[in-house]
């Protein structure tokens, strides 16, 4: 993607997608027993951005989404949680992808684990207690499961996008 207009369009589309996915996830009633356990649908857009358009795009999409979501329907505490989770998981995923050894599934799985770990650390600081650490084992596995699913779907999306690009960008 060397064409600046195409790059800007890709950033815009992926950020919009991340926002829509955040909204969609907020519509799902909380049915998990453990607070903080969720699928993280918006990370579909982040992982897709990382593999389709590169690390800068993933950072922009992730940070813009977190900022916009907190402005549109969030509060300051939720902002701290998502910012910590988003930044740490993006950093982990970018570093792992840079090694060139890992596909979307493994990278996204590690990102999911990094996400829950960072959020629990923030929770421990905000609430001034280490008791929240008891949630780590169950959230760790939830992060693995959610990350793997997100990575699998993102991988398919990326493959479809690559095919579409090779075909001259026509639908």
């Amino acid at each position, binding site marked *: 993607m060397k064409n600046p207009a195409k790059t800007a369009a890709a950033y815009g589309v992926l950020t919009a997608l991340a926002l829509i996915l955040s909204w969609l996830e907020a519509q799902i009633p909380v049915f998990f027993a453990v607070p903080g356990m969720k699928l993280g649908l918006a990370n579909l857009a982040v992982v897709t951005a990382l593999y389709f358009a590169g690390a800068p795009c993933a950072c922009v999409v992730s940070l813009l989404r977190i900022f916009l979501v907190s402005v549109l329907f969030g509060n300051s505490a939720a902002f701290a949680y998502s910012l910590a989770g988003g930044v740490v998981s993006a950093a982990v995923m970018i570093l792992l992808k840079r090694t060139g050894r890992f*596909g979307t599934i*493994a990278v996204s799985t590690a990102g999911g684990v990094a996400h829950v770990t960072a959020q629990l650390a923030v929770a421990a600081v905000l609430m001034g207690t280490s008791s929240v650490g*008891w949630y780590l084992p169950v959230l*760790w596995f939830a992060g693995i499961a959610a990350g793997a699913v997100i990575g699998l779907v993102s991988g398919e999306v990326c493959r479809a996008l690559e095919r579409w690009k090779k075909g001259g960008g026509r639908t």
Partner: protein
Amino acid sequence: MKNRRLRRADLVLIAALLAAGVLLSLGAVLLSRTGMTVVVRVSGSVVASYPLSEDREVEIAGADGGTNLLVIRDGGAHIEDASCPDRLCVGMGVIRRTGQSIICLPNRVVVEIAGPSGARDTDAVSE
């Protein structure tokens, strides 16, 4: 973009994360079993503490003559019976993890699971 969805390195990374999760869980289970105590407070001061590992039934003398029957069984604690009108404490069920608590407002009774050190680290601030 390689055609194979899961390469060897991917599997190794995911397996390592799963293994780390199992270790974390084992660590948590071991930590939660060793020397956890049930701390009973009435009107904010500690009146009794019992090891979570020993089964027992105790009648707690709450504020204003109220009573709560505390039952510790199979590594969990719950309030079996209470003199208070709403009996919310009975409905709060079994607690077994550090930091969990049962609160009876009318009798000013707090039953809390504490770690090996006895009281929780936040108590230094809250007291």
